[in-house]
């Protein structure tokens, strides 16, 4: 029965390829692919999917790649695909799903995530950005930070405080914010690598129609959980081949440059190789689990391991390369000037860049310390942290 379903899907892809030429108009081609249910097969019919199990998407992607068809450049629209889309699907109205999902998937509309604030990092539920109801819309004021792609985004998923008089988790509401609103100001945020991959976003009297609210008023925290669980899966998951990722640069250097080899470095190299392979297999197992259900706390563990691995491998790589490791990036250009990369190409850069950029891996998308709390409490059932702010109205919390 499964193989029948797989064959049907292959036939469907073949029919689609025969009827659509991506060289004519790429965007028309991508829209047609969405309308044929071949965008993400696990989504509902009519919303880019076919109501099929998620792993079957690999068949579609494989067949299309074999046919030489271009994709929707998923790395550029990762936040939309990985975080906004599952949230819109889970919490959106039919109208919202129809409006947003297609241009999100084709890449016509880039999405960003307006969650973190200067005063709300790990304690995300403490966000201070206010949304005040005014007729059919909301007036939003506040400051967001660490917003990738805000400078290219058309939409931002936003959590804002709609009721300061109740405890912090209860007073939040989830919106889609139009980034072209005149009250939205995006400023680059330069990070320790020298680049500005991220932004600060200042929201001043931004008007958001109530029709752009996702979920009920006051239900923003629950809606955000869908986003965050998917974020960790997106960061920690992956189905890469052996020796892909950060370890690739190290094993290549080891094989090509025998003069770098020492006995002590060899055992360290093999420790990291083992860890990389363990992380890779765990990611594959996680995806196999996801095929049977929805993302759970296992995604937190994958993200935790991924961060540590990237940091350990890139730190080792720098030492292995010795004096070459001390030269930052391509030394023919001055890369300490601010650049704004659309996507982070971890592997195309120098060892020094990898080392520095990996430092963000244990902070972004839930710090490793918060992830350990999540595992301890939600998986192992250990007691929660003592919460001094639990029953206090948000407005009365010390800030």
């Amino acid at each position, binding site marked *: 029965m499964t193989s029948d379903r797989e064959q049907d899907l292959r036939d469907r892809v073949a029919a689609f390829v025969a009827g659509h030429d991506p060289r004519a108009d790429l965007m028309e081609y991508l829209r047609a692919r969405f309308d044929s249910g071949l965008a993400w097969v696990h989504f509902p019919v009519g919303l880019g999917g076919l109501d099929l199990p998620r792993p079957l998407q690999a068949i579609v992607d494989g067949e299309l790649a074999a046919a030489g068809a271009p994709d929707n450049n998923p790395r550029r629209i990762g936040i939309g695909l990985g975080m906004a889309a599952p949230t819109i699907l889970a919490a959106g109205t039919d109208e919202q799903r129809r409006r947003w999902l297609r241009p999100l998937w084709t890449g016509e509309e880039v999405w960003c995530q307006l969650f973190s604030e200067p005063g709300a990092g790990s304690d995300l539920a403490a966000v201070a950005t206010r949304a005040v109801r005014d007729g059919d819309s909301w007036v939003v004021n506040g400051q967001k930070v660490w917003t990738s792609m805000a400078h290219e985004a058309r939409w931002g998923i936003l959590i804002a405080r709609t009721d300061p008089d109740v405890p912090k988790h209860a007073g939040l509401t989830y919106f889609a914010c139009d980034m072209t609103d005149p009250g939205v100001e995006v400023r680059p945020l330069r990070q320790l690598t020298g680049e500005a991959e991220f932004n600060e976003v200042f929201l001043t009297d931004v008007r958001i129609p109530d029709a752009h609210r996702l979920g009920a008023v006051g239900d923003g925290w629950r809606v955000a959980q869908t986003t965050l669980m998917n974020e960790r899966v997106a960061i920690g998951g992956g189905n890469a081949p052996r*020796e892909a990722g950060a370890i690739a640069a190290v*094993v290549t250097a*080891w*094989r090509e440059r*025998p*003069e770098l*080899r020492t*006995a002590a470095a*060899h*055992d360290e*190299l*093999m*420790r990291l*190789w*083992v*860890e990389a*392979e*363990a*992380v890779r*297999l*765990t990611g*594959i*197992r996680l995806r*196999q*689990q996801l095929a*049977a259900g929805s993302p759970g706390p*296992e995604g937190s*563990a994958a993200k*935790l*391991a991924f961060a540590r691995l990237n940091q350990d491998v890139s730190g080792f790589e720098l030492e292995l390369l010795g004096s070459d490791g001390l030269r930052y990036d391509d030394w023919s250009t001055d890369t300490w000037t601010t650049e704004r990369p659309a996507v982070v190409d971890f592997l195309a850069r120098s060892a020094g860049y990898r080392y520095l950029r990996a430092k963000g891996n244990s902070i972004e998308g839930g710090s490793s*310390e918060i*992830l*350990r*709390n999540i*595992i*301890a*409490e939600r*998986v*192992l*059932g*250990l*007691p*929660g*942290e*003592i919460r001094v702010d639990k029953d206090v109205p948000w407005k009365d919390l010390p800030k």
Partner: protein
Amino acid sequence: MSADLLYSDVEEQLRASVRDLLAKRAPVAEAIARTESGEPYDQDLWRALAREVGITGLAFEEEVGGHGASWREVAVVAEELGAAVTATPFLGHTMAAVAAQTAGARDLLPGLLSGERTATLAVTAGGPRASDIEVDGAKITGQLTGVIDALTADVLLVPTAHGLHLVEAAAVSRTPVPSLDMTRPLCDVTFHSAAATQLAEPGAGARDSALLVGGALLSSEQLGLAQRCLDTTVAYLKERYQFGRPIGSFQALKHRAADLWAAIAQARAVARYAAACVADQDPDAPVAVALALAYCGPVAVRAAEECVQLHGGLGFTWEHPAHLYLKRAKADAILLGTASAHRARLAELVALPASAP
């Protein structure tokens, strides 16, 4: 990669029945007393596992006397045997059966697969090395120190420079060794012109295939042991109160438990991959097994060490079984080679040489 790293429903049912049987017939509390008795092996349990679960023949084809399942199922049994620190000759016997099969010893197999006769692969625990056993026609002479599961074996399968030899246990002298891990005790085996039957020529791969399957099963045992240590420790963190709070509410301890859980989640993916590769005779099996032993051994040791530490004073007593897990985990991490030995093996397999050519 297509290997299924999850557990099938059948595997989970098998796990439940083995766990049930072990809980009834081999409670961990009794395991401590057994280590000090004259009979460290639980022979009744071993017979019950062979008869009721069929673990001796599970992965072998029916035409040679097996049950036609695969090493994936046996690996799940190994997890449970590790979780309960059971004292049975499972590992040595299973490796011997694989060696016998590779050698094509079809007369020997049915007795081993039914569990009627118990065997072990006679190699020195702690990194099998080239044996100095001398073979003279149908007689062998020499000594092997620190052999697992030989104490209660009926027959020994002895890899030598001349191939694989079958020796009846009655023809050798066995000296029990006070062992770090008394749930898998060692003995020294001496052969004085012992009658030996050659089962395989050198190079037939009998020893290597046995160690490959044995390695996959050992990594699953390590996984099961680690998971049980974590479960026991987490339960204790919830019930033990100090400073007016369960100690599991302290972040320093929660984070240790979370890190251990994450390491065990990785060990599970790695051990399942090894089991799947061995079951499917995948060409990647040597890499998968070396990886599994390099990864799961240290995770099991860490789990047992955390179990001792996080139980505080209780974990340091003889009365609490934490020490059985610690000893088993540490012995397991040496038995078929240390993690660093497996990393060195991996380096050869994946072309990452130690030094300049």
